[in-house]
C-alpha cells in the first residue's frame, strides 16, 4: 500500500523497465475471491455470547437449575406420602426437620402438610412446569413462526388471519383452557393442548408484523424478480434475518408459560399434577402462619429463579444472534 502523498522514486528500486512493467498473470478464479476473514454465523453468535462474563455465570446457573429439575428427581425418589403416618413430621421448619431426620439436602427447606420434603416437592413440581413451558414454547413457536411468515407475505391470508386474530384474541384465554381441562381432565397433555390451541396466534401476529417490515426491501424485490418462489423467500431470505427477533421472543415466551401455569393453578383451573403452580396454590394459606411461610416462598422463589434465568439467557442469546453485534 502506498499512501497518497508519499512519492516513490522508481529509480530507487533498482529495477529495469521490463521488470517494473511486466504484465501480471490474470486468473479468473483468483479475481473472484473475496479476501475477507472467514465468517461463520453460529460461531460468531457464541463468540459474542461468551464475551460477556455474566453470561457464563447465568448459563452455569441455568445448568444447575436444569440438573435439579431433570436429574435430581431420579435420585430423590420423592413420595408425597412417605411420612404421612408420622404426625410429628408435619409442617416442620428446616431446623426441626434436620434435627428429626438428620442432615440431608432433602430436609433443608423443612416439610409440608403431609410431612413431605418441601425441597423434593419443589423440584418435582419444577420438572412438570419447566417441561410444560418447553413443550408449549416449542409447539407455539414452530407453528407461530411458520404461519406468521406466510401471513406476512400473502395479502389474501392477511385478510383472513387478521379477522381470525380479532376473534380469537377476544375469546378469553382462561375460558378456552378451562373448557378443555373440563372435557379432557387436567392432565399434562391437556394443558399443552389448551395452551397451544390458540397460543400460537399471538406469536404469528408478531412475526407477521416483522415480516411486513422487511418483505419489501430491495433484496427481496430482486429475489422476486429473479423468480424465487414466495415460500423460498420466506424461508431463506426472511427467516434468517429474524433469528435474533425469534430468539428474543422465545426468551419472553418461556417464562410467560411458567407464569401462566402458576396463574392457572392459583385460580383453580390448571393441571392436576403437583406442578409449581399447584404447590404455590396449596401453600397460599400457610403464608401467614409463622414458620410455614417457607412452604409458599420456596416454590415461588424457584419459579422466579427459573423464569429469570431463562429470560436472561434468551435475551442475551438474542442480542448475540443479531449480526450487527458480530464485529
Amino acid at each position, binding site marked *: 500500500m502506498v499512501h497518497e502523498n508519499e512519492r516513490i522514486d522508481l529509480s530507487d528500486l533498482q529495477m529495469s523497465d521490463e521488470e517494473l512493467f511486466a504484465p501480471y498473470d490474470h486468473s479468473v478464479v483468483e479475481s473472484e475471491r473475496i479476501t475477507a476473514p472467514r465468517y461463520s454465523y453460529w460461531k460468531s453468535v457464541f463468540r459474542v455470547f461468551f464475551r460477556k462474563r455474566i453470561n457464563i455465570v447465568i448459563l452455569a446457573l441455568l445448568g444447575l437449575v436444569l440438573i435439579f429439575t431433570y436429574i435430581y428427581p431420579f435420585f430423590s425418589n420423592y413420595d408425597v406420602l412417605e411420612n404421612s403416618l408420622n404426625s410429628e413430621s408435619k409442617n416442620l421448619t428446616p431446623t426441626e426437620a434436620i434435627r428429626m431426620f438428620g442432615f440431608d439436602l432433602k430436609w433443608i427447606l423443612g416439610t409440608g402438610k403431609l410431612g413431605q420434603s418441601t425441597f423434593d416437592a419443589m423440584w418435582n413440581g419444577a420438572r412438570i412446569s419447566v417441561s410444560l413451558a418447553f413443550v408449549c414454547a416449542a409447539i407455539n413457536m414452530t407453528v407461530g413462526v411458520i404461519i406468521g411468515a406466510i401471513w406476512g407475505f400473502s395479502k389474501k391470508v392477511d385478510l383472513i388471519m387478521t379477522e381470525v386474530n*380479532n376473534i380469537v384474541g377476544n375469546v*378469553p384465554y382462561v375460558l378456552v383452557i*378451562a373448557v378443555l381441562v373440563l*372435557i379432557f381432565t387436567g392432565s399434562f397433555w391437556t394443558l399443552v393442548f389448551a395452551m397451544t390451541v390458540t397460543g400460537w396466534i399471538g406469536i404469528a401476529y408478531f412475526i407477521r408484523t416483522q415480516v411486513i417490515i422487511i418483505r419489501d426491501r430491495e433484496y427481496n424485490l430482486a429475489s422476486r424478480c429473479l423468480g424465487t418462489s414466495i415460500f423460498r423467500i420466506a424461508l431463506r431470505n426472511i427467516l434468517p434475518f429474524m433469528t435474533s427477533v425469534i430468539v428474543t421472543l422465545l426468551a419472553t415466551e418461556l417464562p410467560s408459560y411458567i407464569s401462566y401455569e402458576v396463574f392457572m393453578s392459583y385460580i383453580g383451573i390448571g393441571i392436576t399434577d403437583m406442578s409449581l403452580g399447584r404447590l404455590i396454590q396449596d401453600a397460599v394459606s400457610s*403464608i401467614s402462619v409463622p414458620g410455614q411461610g417457607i412452604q409458599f416462598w420456596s416454590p415461588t422463589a424457584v419459579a*422466579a429463579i427459573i423464569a429469570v434465568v431463562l429470560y436472561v439467557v434468551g435475551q442475551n442469546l438474542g442480542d448475540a444472534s443479531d449480526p450487527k453485534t458480530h464485529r
Partner: protein
Amino acid sequence: MIKYLLKRLLHGLVSVVIVIAVVMMLVYALIPRYRIFAKDPLYNKTQANERAVYEQQAYESYGYVDYVPYAEWLAELAANGEIDEETRSKAVQFGRKPSKDSDIAKEYVEKFKDYYESQGYTVVRLNYDSKTKQRQVYYATKDIPLIVRLGRYFTNLIQVDNVHYVEDTTGEKLENTGIRFTLYDPLYNDNGESKKVFSPAIIGNGTEHKYLLYFDDEFPYIHQNLISLHLGLSYSVNKDIDIFNTLSDRQDPNREVTVTFPTGLTEESPRDLHSATYVQGSRDSLLLYSDRFTDDYTNVTMYKKNMSKTGFSFVIGLISVAMSYLLGVPLGILMARRKNTWVDSLGTVYVIFIIAVPSLAYIFLFRELGGMMGLPKSFDLQLDSKLMYVLPVVSLALPSIANLMKWIRRYMIDQQNSDYVKFARSGGLSENEIFRKHILKNAIIPIVHGIPGSILGSLVGAIITESIYRVPGAGYLLTTAINAYDNGVIVGLTLFYSLLSVLSLILGDILMSVIDPRISFTEKAR
C-alpha cells in the same frame, strides 16, 4: 374520518358477534349441561319427578330448551277460546298412569303428544312415583339450536321499557297508562305543597319502571331506567340476577336516608324509590306496602354504602393507570437519556424482574413488604381508611410501569439515530431540546395508542390482585363463573370484555391521530 371509524366500529361489532358465537359453542355445546347444577343446593334436595321438572325449568330459563308443561298448553288453548273452562279442568286431570286416564284426558293427552311431536319436541310422561309419593308429570321439551340461541341473545340484549309492559306480562289493564314529564319530581316535593324543588323527571304508568328518567345526588346525577341491558342471567354466581346488574349495582351494607313515601309517610329507610318496578297486586298483599305506596310500583332496591364491583375495579385501576404513566414515562425517558449507565442497568433489572417473575409471586412479595411497613394487607369495608387502596394500586401499577419503561426506552433509542435528530443536532440544538421537543414527540405516539385501552381495561378488573387483597371488584367474576359453570355469566362477561377491547382499539387510533397530525384515517390521505 367519521365514515372510516363507523366502518371500523361495524367491523368490530361483527367480530364481537362471532366471538359470542364461539364462546356459546364452547360453553353450551362442549360443557355438559347438567354441570349448571354443580353448585345448586336446591337441586340436590329434589328427586324423581320433581327433579325432572326442576331440571327442565332450569334448562328453559337458561336457554337450553323450550319446555312446555301439559297444563300450560291447556291453559293457552282455553285462553284462545279453543276449549272451554270445563273441558280444560277435566283434561288437566290426567291419571297416575296412562291406563287410568279419563276419556277426555286421554283425548287431550293424545292431542298434546301429536302436536308437539310433529314439531320436533320430545314428549315425556312420568307416572306417579309411589316411593316418594310424587305426582305424575307430563311435558314436551325441545333443544334450542345454537344459532337460535345466539339470535335470541342479541334480540333480548337491549330492552326498552314501554307503556304496554304491564299489560303484556301480567295481562292486567291499568288506567291512565302513559308517560308524563314533570319539572318537579314528586319524590322531592310533597304532593301539592307550595314548596317546589326543581328536578325534572319522566314518570311512566304501565311501564316496568315508574321513573324512566330522574336526577339525584349520586354520580352521574342523571339516571335512566328506560333502556336496560341483559347480558346474561346468572345461575350460581349471583342467582337470577343479570350479570350487568352484578357488575354495576352498589354493594352492601344498606345506607339509610330520610324517605318520604307516596302516601306521605316519612321514615329513615334505605329504600330507593326511584328504582320502583311493577309487581302485580303487591300493594294490597302486605300492610308494609299499603302504608307506603299508592300504586303497585313497590319493588324497590336499597341504597347501598359501597361502590359497585366495577366501581372498585375502576377506581383502583384508574389510579394505578395514572400512576404508571406518571412514573413509567419519565423513568423510561431517563433510562434512554442515561443509556449504558447505572440508571439504565437498574431500570433493566427491574424490567427483567417484572417480566420474568410470575405475577403471583411478586404481588405476594409486595404485599408482605407493604405489611411490614404497616399498610393494611387486605381490603376491609368496615374501615374507612383510604390506606387499604395503597397496596392493590401499587401492585397493579408495578407491571405497567415496567412495561412502559421498556417500550419508551426502546422507542427513544431507536429514534436517536434518525436523520432528523442528526439534523437537529447539527443545527445546534441542545440535547435537552432534542430529547424534549423532537424525540419524545415521536416516541410517545405508540404509547398514546395504549392509553384508552388501559383506562377501559380497568373496568374489567384484575384477577390476581383483587383476589389476593380481597377487593370486592369485578376481576374474579369470570373465573368464579367458569368454576361454577355459570354459562350466562361467562357469555355476558365475554361480550362486555370484547366490546371494551373493540372500543379501546378505535379510541386508541383516534387519540393517536389527534396527537400526530401525520396519521390520518381518511381514504384520500392513505
